[in-house]
């Protein structure tokens, strides 16, 4: 009795598995009809955005414009939580019936999904139409395999330093011009109750800027294999310099990650002194900083750093002056290989890469994908600094296994160990050994 039932069940699950395999097998991204002018069946397409960086106005614009330009079709936007993006994309993208049509993906995750065949190829014609070589090259590279483009840049957020001008001035410290001066300045500003520079130990996204500034690389491609290069002398020098800054200037625990630093930086709501004199954050952090004011809806919000004698910014200086190459936060956009409405999805890309939308991105401080429009940003000090930092910025390695490195929180751990005062050379060697196999996607 039981046995027969089990066999029936096994048989039906096998059919199920076969159907699933059949669905999944045509993931090969081929023929993309470039022109949007062709007759397209109206449909509802879905765009997944991560976090709340794309604000309400931008979303409304996309939805309205899409509906206006695509008669009978509609656009739905679903917001995903950054911490769940990978599991959700892993399950939903291969699923033709439920895949979102267009997805936002962290620039550091883009390479992994691109290699896996998750995305539809952006044809050379479409790529040209959307901006071509004007699109941020480092981001395009993260979403490309050889010459084929799959994921394009969405926005970048260059990181720069926010500092309490009042505190710095009181201490008589000038804005530094080299990376070393910066380290000395923030060390001097540190007290028992205040970080000179609030920096979490696990915050590698800010931390790798010191590696880049010292000419170091995290990983390089040798032949067709990726190799982790933490032990490279320049990388070690950068990590050691970062260790010094962390130890001498930050009161945050080594286990803290890149969180809401502005929480320490603003004047506390309940009164008292801020707990940080300097923080490093993406440009859009500006809107979480400043004095409390009441907005139109009656909520108390930060004013976006109106008072520049209290809140000000500068770009992280390089080792020999100038601007340090910081890590560029940001994300890519791609069309799912399984999208049932690729033409509509591409029409959505046309809207996103239009001058108007790119300008809107720039205006809210999200670095636009199309470098032609960065000039829109550079109208005030925030824009200028953002553009300067972005031009010098660098990305994490575009290795197929990079998302696995992130998924296992390896860099968090690496930086935590360095923050705890470990010997950098030893730690670097240990993690090189751990990371290299992961980079090439050998975990099966």
């Amino acid at each position: 009795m039981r046995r027969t039932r089990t066999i029936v069940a096994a048989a039906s699950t096998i059919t199920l598995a076969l159907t699933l395999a059949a669905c999944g097998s045509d993931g090969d991204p081929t023929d993309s009809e470039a022109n949007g002018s062709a007759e397209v069946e109206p449909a509802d397409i879905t765009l997944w955005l991560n976090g709340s960086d794309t604000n309400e106005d931008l979303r409304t614009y996309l939805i309205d414009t899409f509906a206006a330009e695509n008669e009978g079709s509609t656009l739905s936007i679903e917001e995903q939580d950054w911490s769940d993006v990978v599991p959700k994309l892993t399950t939903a993208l291969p699923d033709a019936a439920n895949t979102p049509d267009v997805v936002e993906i962290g620039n550091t995750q883009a390479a992994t999904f691109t290699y896996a065949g998750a995305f539809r190829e952006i044809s050379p014609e479409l790529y040209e139409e959307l901006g071509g070589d004007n699109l941020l090259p480092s981001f395009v590279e993260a979403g490309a395999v050889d010459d084929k483009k799959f994921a394009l840049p969405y926005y970048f957020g260059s990181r720069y330093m926010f500092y309490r001008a009042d505190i710095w001035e009181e201490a008589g410290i000038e804005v530094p011009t080299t990376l070393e001066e910066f380290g000395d300045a923030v060390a001097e500003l540190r007290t028992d109750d205040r970080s000179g520079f609030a920096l979490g130990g696990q915050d590698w996204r800010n931390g790798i800027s010191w590696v880049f500034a010292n000419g170091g690389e995290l990983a390089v491609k040798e032949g067709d294999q990726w190799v982790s290069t933490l032990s490279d002398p320049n990388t070690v020098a950068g990590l050691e310099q970062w260790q010094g800054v962390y130890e001498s200037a930050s009161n945050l625990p080594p286990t803290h990650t890149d969180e809401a630093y502005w929480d320490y930086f603003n004047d506390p709501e309940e009164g008292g002194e801020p707990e940080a004199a300097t923080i490093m954050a993406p440009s859009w952090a500006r809107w979480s900083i400043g004095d409390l004011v009441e907005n139109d809806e009656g909520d108390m919000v930060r004013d976006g750093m109106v008072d520049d004698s209290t809140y000000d910014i500068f770009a992280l200086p390089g080792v020999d002056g100038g601007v340090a190459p910081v890590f560029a936060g940001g994300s890519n956009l791609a069309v799912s290989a399984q999208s049932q409405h690729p033409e509509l999805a591409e029409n959505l890309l046309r809207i996103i890469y239009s001058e108007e939308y790119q300008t809107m991105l720039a205006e809210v401080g999200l670095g636009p994908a199309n470098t032609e429009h960065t000039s829109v940003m550079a109208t005030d000090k925030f824009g200028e600094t953002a553009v300067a930092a972005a031009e010098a910025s660098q990305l994490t390695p575009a290795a197929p296994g990079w998302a696995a490195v992130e998924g296992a929180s390896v860099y968090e751990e690496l930086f935590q160990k360095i923050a705890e005062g470990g010997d950098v050379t030893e730690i670097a060697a240990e993690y090189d050994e751990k990371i290299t196999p992961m980079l090439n996607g050998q975990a099966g």
Partner: protein
Amino acid sequence: MSAVLTDTATVTPPGRVLLRRQRVRPGKVLLSVLGLVLALVWVFPVYWMMLSAVTPDAILGSVTPSFLPWNFTLSNLESVLTDSGFLNALGMSLMVTGLTIVLVLAFAFFAALAISRWRFRGRKSFILTVLFIQMLPAEGLFIAQYQMMSSLGLLNQVIGISALYVAMLIPFTVWMLRGFVAGVPIELEEAAMVDGLSRPRAFLRITFPLLAPGLIASGVYAFLQAWNEFTTALVILPAESAQTLPIWLRSFLSASANRGINWAEVMAASTLIAVPVIVFFLFVQGRMTSGLVSGAVKG
């Protein structure tokens, strides 16, 4: 001889017996004090959650915590209740939990009836399967669960996630109900049949009411599990409109983390999620305790 009848009778006696013997023993006073202290320790996190929910965030951040609601405010609760996602998630959670409880109790009850009233071939392997199946870690199953639900068109559907919860909860519930069913002597039912009732009627009139506490105790367990589950829900309910409360709370927490965590609002949200459970508990509390009495002993 009726186990449950004597059970319900023995729930109250200790109290009455105590009254009868009103000698004041110093040991008892000490133990009572200890009991109160422990009760205080256990309730503190809940108290803290509720207190913070009605305190302005600015006060919560201060160095010296206050342990009484001096700065009472409803604004945190208000801003959570006006969050568009909350009511939606509440509705979703209620539907998922409701459907899950009904199905789990019905299915598990039939199974419990089968294994406690009959000895049959395959009985032992069924019991063992049921025991062992709940030992499989759920964290490796997401891909398969997703593929399955997607191919059935049940993603983002109450019925899809409920089907997974039912499968997840059946083992424990069968196990728990088995004890109750075994505790109701078949003789009672047979006596009623002698009095002229048909078997189904005898079962409905006599046995079923005696099982009610057991069903409630198991229902409470299923309720908590379905209400709290969040990893499967994350994958099976990817759409924002299909979020359940735990998922919503987590995204509320991380959205809040972006601006610097507003603990007051997070605690208000936590409180609001806990309230339906507490109400449900208080509602069934009396019956549940007597349910645990009979269920637990037969294990």
